[in-house]
Every structure is written in C-alpha cells, then in structure tokens.
C-alpha cells in the first residue's frame, strides 16, 4: 500500500511541475524563482489547513468547520489587536492557536464522548462558529487601518527570500512529517483509519485518537486565522467562506482516501500546491478566472478516479474478499 501511495505523490509532483513548465512556455517569467516563491506563499495557508484536514480524514472523520474556526479565531485576534495594540504579536499567534484548539476540541468532545458522526458535528459547528463571529464583532468589519504595523508584518518579513508566511508552512510541514512517521501518535492515527477493530485490539483508544486529530485540525485552523487576517488585513464574517471544501479538495487531490488510513504529509502538501499553482497559472495563460471553479472541480473528480483505479478494488460485491467497504 505504501508503494502505491508513494507512486501517487510522485505522479502528482510530476503533474504540478509540468503545469509550471507548460505555463512557463507561455510566459517565461512563471518558472522564475521569485514567481515560484509567490506561488508557494499563496498556497501556504492551504498547505497548513490541508495537513490538519488530512489528520482528521485519516481517522475516518471529516472536519467541515475548519474555515469557520479559522474565521472566528482570526476575528478574535483582529479585535484584540485593534483594541489592545500593545499586546505583542507572538502572544496573539498563541491566542489564535488556542482559540482554534478549543473550538477543535469542542468538535472532538462531541464526537468522542457522545458519539455523533463527525460530519454532523462539524456541519453544525460550521454554522455556529461562523455565526459567533457576527455576535462577537457586532456585525462589523475590522478594517486595515485598525491593525498595528507589527501585526501585519509578522507574515510578511522576508528571510532567505521567502516571506515569514512560507516559513511557518515549511515548519509545520516538517513538524507533521515527524509526527506522522516518527511518533506513536502518528502510527495510531493511521491504525485507527486502516482498521479500527484491529486498532482497538492493539490498545489504541479510537475516540481519543479522533479527539486528538480534531484538536490538531482546530489548532492549525486557529493559527491560520491569524495568518489569514494578517495577510489579507481584514477581519470579517466573510473570511474564508466556503473554504472548507477547498481544503477537503486539496486532500483528495493529494491522494488522501476519504475512507481513512491512506495519505501522507507530502500528498496533502502537493494537493494544496496543485490548487495554488493552478489558480496562479490560469490568469497567466489567459484563461478567464470564471473558469477556475469548473477546472478545479474537474481536477478533483479526475484525482478521485485516478486514486480509485490505482487501488484496484474489485467492483464486484458478490464473491469479493473484503466486504462492506462503502
């Protein structure tokens, strides 16, 4: 199974690179290091969020509340920054992450302790968190002029040619790579997804593992809340609206199986980069931005078809060895 997964990441990387190459034929500047850095920076938040979603999907769950969580945590730090400009930004980053962690833990508790399916819980909290933004901000926006200079600069400062935003993403990717491949937590997350029965018999607490996965996705959403508000310099109810499905799309394109247990950090990152490269490339080759949605939809469908065919599952239900997959 690992060989297939590795193959998927390899091919996805090829696709992303050939997309960059093909676009560069039309516009030579596209493959320049500066432009590539811009594309990576544009995709940074999606990469971070896709990693959080990946962990959740691996445990056979789904987190549809990530974008709302992001917007709510972002609004909280935006209001704090506008109200108390003296609080240092690193403290705000911690605050955003903690807010996100709390919201994620709320999802996780409902799933773990009460046993409500994750799709129902996060469908509910998707609207609850988004509505809460309206309540705490009184329906107002936090506009660009109300942020401190420092707040805005913490995602923009350049280091070795890359903005800080990109470095956060790189650090989180490395951190998650270590967690997923080198720790018992990572192994138990995979175990729960591949075979919950077997995981239970090996002494893994399934509910608790799912709870931790939701805490992780929540914390990353919260952290991205700060990044989003700092990058686009606006806090509003509309922040990242509808983004939850883009995050799932990045995971799906990255070869993470919605049935759980299959997927890698590299896959999630490449899935996010694929969408990032595409949204940057289309305007360059003169495709109307209105086409982008249909193309990314087609990309998702294609990715699912390719994933499924590479896993070579028999379509016959009768006389199949392993029943009940759907």
């Amino acid at each position, binding site marked *: 199974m690992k060989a297939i997964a590795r193959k998927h990441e390899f091919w996805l990387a090829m696709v992303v690179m050939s997309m960059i190459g093909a676009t560069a034929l039309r516009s030579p500047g596209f493959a320049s290091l500066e432009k590539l850095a811009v594309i990576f920076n544009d995709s940074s938040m999606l990469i971070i969020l896709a990693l959080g979603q990946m962990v959740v999907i691996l445990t*056979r*769950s*789904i987190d549809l509340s990530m974008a709302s969580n992001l917007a709510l945590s972002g609004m909280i730090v935006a209001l704090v920054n506008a109200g108390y400009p003296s609080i240092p930004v690193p403290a705000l980053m911690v605050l955003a992450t903690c807010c996100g962690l709390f919201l994620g833990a709320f999802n996780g508790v*409902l*799933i773990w302790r*009460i*046993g*409500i*399916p*994750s*799709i*129902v*819980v996060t*469908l*509910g*909290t*998707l*609207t*609850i968190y*988004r*509505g809460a933004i*309206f*309540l705490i901000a009184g*329906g107002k926006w936090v506009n660009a002029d109300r942020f401190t200079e420092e707040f805005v600069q913490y995602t923009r400062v350049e280091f070795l040619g890359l903005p800080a935003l990109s470095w956060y993403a790189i650090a989180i990717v490395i951190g998650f790579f270590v967690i997923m491949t080198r720790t018992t937590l990572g192994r138990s997350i995979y175990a729960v997804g591949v075979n*919950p*029965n077997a995981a*239970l018999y090996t002494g893994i607490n*399934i509910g608790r593992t*799912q709870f931790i996965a939701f805490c992780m996705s929540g914390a990353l959403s919260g952290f991205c809340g700060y990044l989003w508000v700092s990058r686009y310099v606006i806090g509003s109810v509309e922040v990242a609206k*509808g983004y939850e*499905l883009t995050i*799932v*799309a990045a995971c*799906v394109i990255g070869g993470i199986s*919605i049935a759980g247990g299959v997927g890698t950090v590299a896959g999630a990152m490449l899935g996010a980069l694929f969408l990032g490269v595409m949204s940057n490339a289309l305007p360059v080759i003169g495709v*109307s931005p*209105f*086409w*982008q*949605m*249909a*193309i*990314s*939809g*087609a*990309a*998702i*469908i294609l*990715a*699912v*078809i390719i994933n*499924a*065919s590479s896993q070579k*599952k028999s*379509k016959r*239900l*009768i006389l199949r060895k392993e*029943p*009940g997959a*759907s």
Partner: protein
Amino acid sequence: MTEKVSQPRQIADRLTSPLHDAVFSWPTLLLLVATGLFILNIFASPYFLSPWALSDATFNFTEKAIIAFAMALLIISGEIDLSVAAIIALSSTTMGLVLQYGVDTPGLILIGTVTGVACGAFNGLLVTGLGLPSIVVTIGTMSFFRGISFMILGDKAFNGYPPSFAYFGQGYVWWVISFEFVLFFVVAAAYYILLHRTNFGRHVFAIGNNPVAARFSGVRVARVKFILFCLVGLMSGIAAVLLTSRLGSTRPSIAQGWELEVITMVVLGGVAILGGSGTIQGVFVAAFVMGLISFGLGLLNVPGIVMSIFIGSLLIVVIALPILAGKIRERRT
C-alpha cells in the same frame, strides 16, 4: 465516516406496541418542537399569525425541502450528494441560456429538470459505475457544476423570464396557498409512498443497513443508488425552476450554501447520516421546524447569520439528546 467498532445488534424478544412507537418516535418529538416554536412565535411577534405572513414564510423552506425528500432516500442508502446547490445553479443557467434563444415556459421547465437529472446521473455514474465515494465525487461536481455556470455567465445575469414562468415561484393556487406549498405536499406524499410503501423503498433501507447482504438478497444495489442520484438531480432541477421563477433572474451564485441546509434538514428529520434508517414524516416536520425558526427570528429582526447559530445548535442538540438518553438508560439497566 466515524465508524465505531461494530458490535452484534441486540434485538428485544418482544415488540413494543405500535402506539408506544408512534408517541416516542422522532417525528412526534419534532412535531412537539415545531408546535413549541409556533407558540413561541405567536408570543414573540404580533405579525406572526397573519395568513399572508405565514404564507410568505413557507417560501423559506419549500424549495429546500423538495430536495431534502430525495436526499433523505439517498442518505438512507448510505450515500450523500453535496452538489445539489450547484445543480440548481447549472439548471438555472441552462434555463437562462435557452431563454436567450426564445424558448418559452414549457421548454424552460423541461430544460431545467432535464439538466438536473443529467447532473444527478453524472454523479450516479461516477459513484456506482466507478465505485467512488460519493462525498468526494460530489465535492468535485459541486465545483464543477457551479463552475460551468460561472463559465457561461461570468459576472453577468440572465433576466427577462416570461410572465407565465413567474407562476411557479410566485403564483398562488388558492388564496394564500402558493403553488410551491402545494408542490411541497405533493412531493412529500410521493416520497412517503416511494420510501415506505414500495419494494424500492425497502431496497433503499436494505442497502443502507447492509449493502453486501442486500446484494446477496438480489437487490440491484448499484442501480438503486443510480436512480436515487437521478432523483436528487431531478428534485434539484425542479427546485431550480421554482427558485429561478421566484427570483426572476439567474446568477451563478444562486442558492449558494443550500447543500448544507438541505442536509441539515434531512439529519434534523431523524435520518441517520450513516444510512439505514429515517422517515419522510421526520423530514417533513423538520422542514417546518427550520422554516419556523428562520421566519420567527426574522420577524424579531435577528440577522440571518445569527439564525444559523440556532439551526447549527439545533442540529447538534437534536442528534445528541437521544444518544445521551440512550446512554443514561443503558447505565440504569
């Protein structure tokens, strides 16, 4: 999705009495909630009891509910369709497109519903033909269908629907009873019969409970699921006709976010999100509950986004309560 470790199902030796079942059933519980909301609304706003206000309120939920009935069957069979709102957008766009070529009302309705069925069949083909998970397929087609709308329309809109077309979304059959409201009842009755009174309905439950066992019993699992996807597409197409007629224009952003509201309605109606159980009566009452909440809060000048907090909380509480009650009962025995 969150599959717990499977345990053998326990079946009681004795059946509970039908009366007990009816009183303690999900639809009855919801009906109590709906009645409570209705009474609360009467006290909350003096404008609530006017027939025209109530009639207006039904437009809030009838279009979504029409899709929710078909979606209920699909979810009971263990699949899901997140692309319904996108199908509405695409159906509405194709209607607007053929309108430009002078097609009149009957043609518009035909095109709208056919587009819906075609989209549903596309989903169904991907899910049953290629064996793909429906949640991912429909996340993809959700962008794809709406994306095509954006490709055709860009930032423009289609206007100028013929006056006779306006009847479906704005017309009244009798006094304050709108065409949409009547259609809502007709669709509810049709799906009630389909799910609870036909072989097809039994097959849907069988598939949702155990697709392998269903297949071994001779149920054509793939075909039933394909038909269900087509039905959801058809209902989305009909909803597109109603909505387009009511708004009188088509924009690619039409019905944005409806997929989650439709699914909330279905789950609120007591349909198990993992498949296998649910009733049309439940969804029927859930439609009223959601309509009453948004209308009542609207009369109190509560903004739409705050209303969504109520609906989201309701969804979680309503699902959590029976589970918690079951746990307490378990502990007692």
